[in-house]
């Protein structure tokens, strides 16, 4: 069960990070002058999404223990 939960969490994080990447790329294409700002904010948001996913994965693995 825990492993399945971890897998679902990774799926969610994957979708989330993908959406962030898409949004960032689109805005970079639209505003190449703001690439620096967009990039650091993208990394920040991706890290937050990933943090939630890792949280879920750890909890999932613990549940399995």
């Amino acid at each position, binding site marked *: *069960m*825990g*492993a399945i939960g971890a897998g679902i969490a990774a799926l969610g994080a994957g979708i989330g990070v993908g959406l962030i990447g898409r949004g960032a790329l689109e805005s970079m294409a639209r505003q190449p002058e703001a690439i620096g700002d967009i990039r650091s904010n993208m990394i920040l948001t991706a890290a937050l999404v990933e943090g939630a996913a890792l949280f879920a994965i750890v909890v999932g*693995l613990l549940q*399995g*223990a």
Partner: protein
Amino acid sequence: MTNLFFLTDFSVIKPDPGLTFWTLLIFLLVWGVLGKLAFKPIQGALRKREQDIQTALDEAKKARDEMSHLKAKNEELLVEAREERSKMLKEAKEMKEAIVNEAKAKAKEEAQRVLSNAKQEIDNLRMAAMVDLQNQSGMLAIQVAEKILQRELKGDPEREAYVKTLVEGIKLN
């Protein structure tokens, strides 16, 4: 399968108090030492360098401004000098012309004077010559007249005496 990780000891997820203690100690050491010995001086040096670059740029800009100012001034001076030169040239030309004209006029005048002097001389000479001629011709006429009279008067002593007085009178003139 669910406890794959826990079948064998997944020890890294269990925080060890010893490792926590050492991490805190080492990190605080790094923070303290680097903060004091490295990050503060580096930040200060970077800031100083930024300021130096700024002042250098400002100074360069100032120097450039001054330079262009000087250049403009130079240009102005140059233009002025050129004007002055052309003015001087013009004046010199005028002066030259004036001198030449004056000289010409003077020369003309001189020539005129010389000419008129010469003319006068010539006139004088001619006058003298004429006077001379007149005198000569007068004398000649008298002599002729005397000879004629002598011949005619040889016969008449009275007349002869008279003519003699006349001639004497002319000669006295």
